[in-house]
């Protein structure tokens, strides 16, 4: 039922419209990688078929799916088919708001931030047991 909260499930790649438009056949796999990034599905048994799958299911509702399939023939792009969610940054921002995480991080009052600057600590910490024998070697401090 809709009442029970199941966290949103988002999977796969989000592609930019302007990048996808720059795709044309004959590009090498490396060029496609630079343009669209790593595909989310590459079957272990068929290296020449890349699927940029993107799925989204909001609060447990049925999943909406879009896939852009690229097929290669010994390292050159042959065919592109399917469609994709046009990545809408604004929408993504609204999504991320649901976690109410304030981007400026925790205030000073937080005691449990672990990243406190610890001081020089014990003797052991300061010494890196570098094996070079020259006494005047610069000791790299942590």
């Amino acid at each position, binding site marked *: 039922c809709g009442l029970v909260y199941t966290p949103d*499930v988002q999977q796969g790649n989000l592609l930019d419209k302007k990048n996808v438009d720059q795709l044309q056949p004959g590009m090498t796999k490396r060029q496609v990688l630079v343009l669209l990034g790593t595909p989310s599905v590459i079957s272990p048994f068929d290296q020449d078929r890349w699927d940029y799958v993107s799925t989204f299911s909001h609060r447990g509702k049925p999943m909406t799916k879009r896939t852009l399939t690229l097929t290669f023939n010994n390292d050159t792009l042959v065919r592109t088919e399917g469609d994709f969610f046009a990545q809408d940054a604004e929408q993504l921002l609204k999504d991320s708001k649901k976690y109410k995480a304030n981007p400026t991080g925790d205030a000073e009052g937080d005691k449990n931030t672990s990243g406190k600057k610890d001081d020089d600590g014990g003797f052991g910490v300061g010494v890196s047991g570098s094996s070079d024998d020259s006494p005047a070697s610069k000791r790299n401090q942590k």
Partner: protein
Amino acid sequence: CSMFRSKKETIDTMPVDRLYANAHDSLEHSDYAAAEKAYERLIARFPSGDINEQSQIELAYAQYKDNKPDDAYSTINRFIKTFPTHKHADYAYYLRGLINFDRTGGFIERYLSRGNSASTRRDQGFNLTAFDDFSQLTRRYPNSAYATDARQRMIFLRNQLAQFEINVAEYYLRTKSYIASADRAQYVIEHYQQSPQTADALAILTRSYIALDRQPLADQTRKVLALNYPDHPYLTDPNWPHHPSIWRKAIPFSGHH
């Protein structure tokens, strides 16, 4: 009473052979703490000779048995660094692997939970280290007496690691994160082909592809599964793997898997 004390030699005054006998004797009677103290004094007092080298190995063994894995690990490492070509070096590598072999998952968890599900559901750090240590042994001393047993343990560890990945893949499959489950299954297929868990991985991969509407990939994977593991349950039952029903999980202490 104190009268005897003065006459009896302490571990600080005993000659080397009697001290070694004393330590070895405690080890035999599994009084590991006393054995450990005696070996340490021997190593400090007689820093050279075969007895010293033998004591270092037996010290590591005593610490391992005395449930001090970290001390044992550092002792055995120091031994290997100082005596790389010692005649018992193969045993040293073997002991080093043993120390981390069954450290994953707390003692109670392993004792109570069925099978070894305890150690395939927790931090795999120790399994990985043990696997590397055993592989060093089989590489350096392929025909040592311990190599065969080490290979068996490596197979067991590899299956543990694979089962861990399968458990995670099943979780992601259940929560409909299909790309995550596909990646984890693919990780098993690429890294642990010879492990029996590859069958489960192929099944999960097929189900993920079906859920992602990648029918051609799903058929291809299913064909590979049918070819290599004809009697895998998934082939006959499309919604394998099954998870305990909501009612069974409602019963306290019913375990979750």
